[in-house]
């Protein structure tokens, strides 16, 4: 399913592709790289993928028989003069049946509940016991700003991470609230002015993963995309060095320009004012909150 072929194909081809896509969706999850949610590239996305599949299968266990019963009943008990099926107009209660259909959904919700609670708690912990990397993220109108506090470099709409290492994203906003989402690495978390949010992600294989702003923030929202490049630790460290060597520094003046509403391309900065990130959180209300980080 090459991207470039799409433009040349007609509607019927599109239909075939759609049907093909649906077959893929239900039979061969993970085989198509377009279905990013079905192609997790790290432990966080993997946990969430399994959770999605579990809920779908368990729901289907109830839904499919219900649909089958409905088709059968409507077919069998149509009001036709020749219909010989039994007709019991006053039969309106059965303790046994009631117990069955209160019981089945309760059981399924209980099973799902256990897995949901387990995964919800596990996702707040680092996905592996390697030494984590911290990256601070600020959503702006309409771009993503990344700070690497450990190496003092900064980027826009582009972020590199080492593979096999948990990355703790610490997120805030210097604009209306957005949501930070890299589907192949894991689910999203909101960025909110004045508050710090925490998100663990990890890439287990090298690659380029599309990231996006998922919560509507106005005119330029559709263009708030960024790339996450995952590469082995040594290559990642080499990249950090090259940024420190060759990119320009980020000054306060430059940042004040970036805050203004606009759409941006990838940018790299060799350094940034040390207090910049903290100032961003504080000026938007961070000074009124005491932070209890969920590390």
């Amino acid at each position, binding site marked *: 399913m090459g991207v470039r072929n799409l433009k040349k194909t007609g509607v019927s081809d599109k239909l075939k592709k759609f049907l093909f896509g649906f077959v893929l969706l239900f039979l061969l999850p993970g085989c198509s790289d377009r279905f990013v*949610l079905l192609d997790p590239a790290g432990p966080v996305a993997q946990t969430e993928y399994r959770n999605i599949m579990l809920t779908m299968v368990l729901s289907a266990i109830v839904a499919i028989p219900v649909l089958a019963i*409905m088709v059968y*009943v409507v077919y069998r008990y*149509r009001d036709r003069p020749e219909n010989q099926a039994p007709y019991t*107009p006053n039969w309106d209660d059965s303790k046994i049946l009631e117990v069955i259909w209160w019981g089945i959904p309760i059981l399924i919700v209980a099973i799902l509940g256990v897995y949901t*609670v387990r995964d*919800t708690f596990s996702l707040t912990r680092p996905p592996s016991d390697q030494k984590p990397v911290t990256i601070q993220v600020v959503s702006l109108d309409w771009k993503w700003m990344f700070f690497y506090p450990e190496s003092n470099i900064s980027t826009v709409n582009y972020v590199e991470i080492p593979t096999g290492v948990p990355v703790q994203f610490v997120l805030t906003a210097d604009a209306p609230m957005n949501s930070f*989402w890299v589907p192949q690495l894991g689910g999203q978390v909101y960025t*909110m002015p004045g508050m710090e949010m925490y998100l663990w992600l990890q890439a287990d294989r090298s690659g380029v993963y599309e990231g996006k702003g998922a919560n509507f923030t106005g005119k330029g929202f559709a263009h708030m995309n960024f790339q996450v490049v995952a590469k082995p630790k040594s290559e990642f460290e080499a990249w950090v060095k090259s940024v420190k060597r060759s990119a320009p520094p980020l000054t306060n003046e430059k940042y004040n320009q970036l805050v203004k509403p606009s759409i941006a391309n990838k940018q790299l900065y060799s350094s940034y004012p040390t207090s910049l990130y903290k100032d961003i959180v504080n000026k938007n209300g961070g000074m009124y909150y005491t932070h209890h980080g969920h590390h």
Partner: protein
Amino acid sequence: MVHQIVEYLRNADPLIQMSAAAIVLTLLGIIFALTYYKKWRWLWREWITTVDHKKIGIMYLICALLMLFRGGVDALLMRTQLAFPNMNFLDSQHYNEIFSTHGTIMILFVAMPLIFAMMNIVVPLQIGARDVAFPFLNAVSFWLFFFGALLFNLSFVLGGSPDAGWVSYPPLAELSHSPGPGINYYVLSLQISGIGSIATGINFIVTILKMRAPGMTLMKMPLFAWSVLASCIVIIFAFPPLTVALALLGLDRIFGTHFFTMLHGGNPMMYVNLFWIWGHPEVYIAILPVYGILSEIVSTFSKKYIFGYKSMVASLMLISVISYFVWVHHFFTMGAGPGVNSFFAVASMAVGIPTGVKVFNWLFTMFRGRIRVTLPMLWALAFIPCFVIGGATGITLASAPSDYQLHNSYFVIAHFHQTLIGGAVFGLLAGMYYWWPKMFGFKLNETLGKWAFWFFNIGFYVCFMPQYALGFMGMTRRVYTYPAETGWGSLNFISTVGAYLMGIGFLFIVVQVLYSIRYGERDTTGDPWDGRTLEWSLPSPAPHYNFAQIPTINGRDAWWEMKQQRKAGSLVSENELKPIHMPNRTPLPFLMSLAFFVSGFGLVFNQFTIATVGLIGVIVCMLWRSLEDDRGYYLSVDEIKQTEASVRGA
């Protein structure tokens, strides 16, 4: 203000300029027609000043269908823009305005009035009452809704539509990021119609609890009345938080406070909580009465008592309680912590338990019945699979770890359209077809109705099934365009085709109504479906006092049992007629709501003189009502006899 509006129109999109011209022409046309046919007096006496619940219900229905048209056009514009990658049909700003108005209109000005229409038309007839408990308040509710909707719909030609999504989250919805009048329109129109909704909730709770016919204990009450009771309980608890959220946002925008602003210590998350404390119960407000409608229709057209009545009642009431404990699932991704998220996730899944029970009970009502697939039953049958799939995907979204991935994606869009269209709209259309003869005295044409049904249904699946897949492809909601490399193009194109099929389905409904007004099968018996509940014991349409004599109820499905007794020849003869006490018609609800509208319009543009004049008008109307001595009037026995003779064709 005038200057601002003129400037806006001059610079607006040609689509908007054309709409403005069309609105002016339509208005002139209506005024001309009313004058030419000398209908002003009729309009005033029969409709604008009426307090009759049946007429109020019909007005709700007409408004809801008009708004469905508007919301549907919004939807088609959006789907056109998304049909191909990099489309240039709508720009970002225009697209943002359209999805904001689409959502707001469909929830508040389509779903709500459709429900209020059914409640108004059916509940008093079904419980053997002559009107609602507070007929005057009922008219106030309607006119507040009407003027709220009017104010909201004026926005796109007078100054600009709201453009921050139907949720209008601050700080995006604050002056700092949305300086135009759009969000003010949103705040004030929802506030005005919201007051009406709360009043309706109170009105129907009292009606159902206090005005049932003698013998109709709660456990003999039809399930539709139960579902309305459950829905109204949710209304009176859920709407006040919305009122507070809108009031605080309005204060921020109009008077410069800082409840939800970015700077000066405002906290936008408070708004998000308040909004969804209303917002999630709101969808249960919309779906609960539909459960009632389904129960009536499935039972009638299976010629059987509803299966598991007590279970049905219990599940309705359980849903209305659980609905308050699920709101956080709209923002699991706002970092509330695993404990909070776990609680709300499990509570959200738990809604599936009573809902599943209802589906099983409908199936077993049909089991060993005699199923007549009429138009209402057809829509009810379409409801079940659609709602089951929508519910199943809802379970996935309720599980917090799944939601981290699917939140804000097209999976969510597909899910809630499936529950709100496949659920609420299918069910409400079923109800509309079912009670149409009772409202107007004729049936809607079956053949045209079937065309509408198949176009709308097939269109629905073609439109929304691809959107689930788009969610798995990572397509986020509210994007006005997307690049070709995403690979979202083909599924979006199919989805757009589906949307247009649904549009054709809607047009068939319009044609069906127009055709049937003239040629539809007349209902001379008052009981065209061989019904089971009391409304079918009355002529169609029911006389304005409903019941010449209030019946005494001995069992559930009261009218069905009366018919059985009559067949057996054991029905007791009726008592003497007595004069009936009726409420007077009054212009005050209309005038008071008009004053609310004037005040709201002034506030939208920060014109405090106009706002104050409007508010004074409101207060004068309230004082007028408080001080006037309106004791209603009595219908004499002779008048009742005459009316009965003419409507029953005796």
